[in-house]
């Protein structure tokens, strides 16, 4: 096996309890590093709130005066779940792509040379990004009272859970993208070609039902769409909305003319997450 593709670190080693514990602790410390870095940058947390606030209070207020209310639901209330999800999306992707910085500053090499499996490092990193993005998204809940969105304990629990799943999938996706990137300059590319399209096509800013076919097809390819709909349903369920508003704004992703139930959307997200988690692990195995 001279010059062939890199073999697993040690293909014959068995997963002893000691080794398992070592791998788990490795994943844990990578996860912990993400959180330490997150709380050490309060400025980043605050900056992360600026964009959603602009969307919610500037764009939202402006468009509300243009389109008015439908059945007691103004535009700001409609985009609130989307803006929360946007916060999760941005944080997850940027947290994942910080691997490129780690590569640039050599810290990635320090991790890759350690006697641990790549899977542990990737899982730790992904769960770290998941935690950070979930926290950042959940902070958005404090803005709810300002636009008259009612938040119950159940909403908090469900939103945190949905955000976590969404964050996990998007971080896994981001880690995969980062594993293929060599340079920080590619960051702009990420912004233009990933973040903005994913946001615009997700249904965060307008309902994705009743769109022209070409646009409707593209929205179905956006993983964020499958995450925003469950989050929006959680909010809507707590708002006592009239039927007319639910019909106009409540539609989720449709497949073959049928609206997907939340369970199916969650399943899509889980599959998406796992696929990219596996791809990331494989991708790092090759960067040797």
């Amino acid at each position, binding site marked *: 096996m001279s*010059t062939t593709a890199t073999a697993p670190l040690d293909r014959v080693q068995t997963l002893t309890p000691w080794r398992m514990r070592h791998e788990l602790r490795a994943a844990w*410390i990578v996860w912990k590093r993400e959180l*330490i*870095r997150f709380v050490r940058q309060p400025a980043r947390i605050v900056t992360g709130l600026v964009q959603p606030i602009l969307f919610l209070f500037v764009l939202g207020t402006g468009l509300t005066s243009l389109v008015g209310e439908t059945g007691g639901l103004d535009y700001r209330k409609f985009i609130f779940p989307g803006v929360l999800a946007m916060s999760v999306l941005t944080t997850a992707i940027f947290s994942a792509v910080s691997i490129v910085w780690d590569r640039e500053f050599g*810290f990635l090499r320090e991790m890759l040379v350690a006697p641990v499996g790549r899977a542990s490092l990737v899982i730790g990193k992904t769960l770290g990004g998941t935690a950070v993005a979930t926290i950042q998204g959940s902070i958005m809940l404090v803005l709810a009272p300002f636009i008259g969105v009612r938040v119950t304990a159940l909403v908090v629990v469900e939103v945190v859970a949905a955000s976590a799943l969404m964050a996990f999938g998007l971080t896994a996706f981001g880690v995969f993208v980062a594993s293929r990137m060599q340079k920080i300059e590619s960051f702009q590319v990420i912004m233009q070609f990933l973040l903005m399209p994913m946001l615009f096509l997700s249904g965060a800013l307008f309902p994705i039902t009743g769109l022209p076919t070409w646009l409707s097809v593209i929205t179905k390819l956006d993983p964020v769409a499958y995450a925003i709909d469950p989050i929006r349903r959680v909010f809507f369920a707590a708002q006592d909305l009239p039927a007319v508003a639910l019909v106009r704004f409540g539609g989720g992703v449709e497949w073959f003319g049928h609206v997907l139930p939340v369970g199916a959307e969650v399943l899509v997200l889980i599959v998406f997450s796992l696929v990219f988690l596996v791809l990331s692990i494989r991708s790092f195995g090759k960067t040797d």
Partner: protein
Amino acid sequence: MKHEQNREPAVEATQLSKRFGDLDAVKGVDLEVGSGEIYAFLGPNGAGKTTTINMLCTLLRPTSGWASVAGHDVVKERRAVRSKIGLVFQDRTLDDQLTAEENLAFHATLYGLSKEDIGDRISSVLSMVGLANRRKDLVGTFSGGMARRLEIARGLMHAPQVLFLDEPTIGLDPQTRARIWEDVRRLREEEGVTIFMTTHYMDEAEYADRIAIIDHGAIVATDTPTALKGRVGLDTVRLATADDTWAVHSLTAAGFEADAGEDGVIVRVPYGEAAVPALIANVGVPVRLVSVHRPTLDDVFMHFTGRKIREEAESNGSAMARRFAAMQRRR
């Protein structure tokens, strides 16, 4: 070598080679480093030092040849090798947003140290490099020299058998470089760790027990600093005289190996200082100035490669080497 013990070699390589495309970066390196030895790879940029280190550290798969580190094959037992080596890279690889302690704990956890051991070990490695009082400080506030010492401490966290230092003092001021060398020699005493390092600073290679001179991907000489100097040969005595031609005549007649150089007569003798009285007595013309030059590692490098090491590092020919080094850093 007082540190060499009667154990298996810490690092061993046979015909180790690496080819990138049509570039032979390392061409059949043979080496053997004893346990507890400080072994230095001396060579210009692009000579194959980092490529060799990367192969020994399992970061790069050899194209051909064989190597073992701490008794494990670098291809077949990568994980075992990795757990027994410490690595200090050429570039800074710390997380500036973590404290010194957090950086060390991160490393130790990846290397499987238990939580209880980590705290104690952090204290001892930090005091070994004189950073005990900076334990809780963010690494972003560290100077280049401190960061480098912290990286050495980190490389030692898991008590490796072999510590690889790739250009450990590059870009540091002379005082800091001396300080790092003190640390390295002390930790060899205290930890008994084998040190495999690369450098292109001539003066630093003298700190090593043994030096391998590497050029164009091949080792051209291996020995102790003293022996290498001995192999380069004789001391040179330079005499500035009133009449150099006459001086050469009379010295040659007296049995010395003398030539007229640009600014004086050059005489090659086994031991320069001792020969000065005899030279003066035999030269036959007034002498204005005498200087004795013993071979340095610069001369050693020159002798074995035909070039000065620093010229090579800066010449155009190293553009390839630099591109190549950048390529490796990205790995």
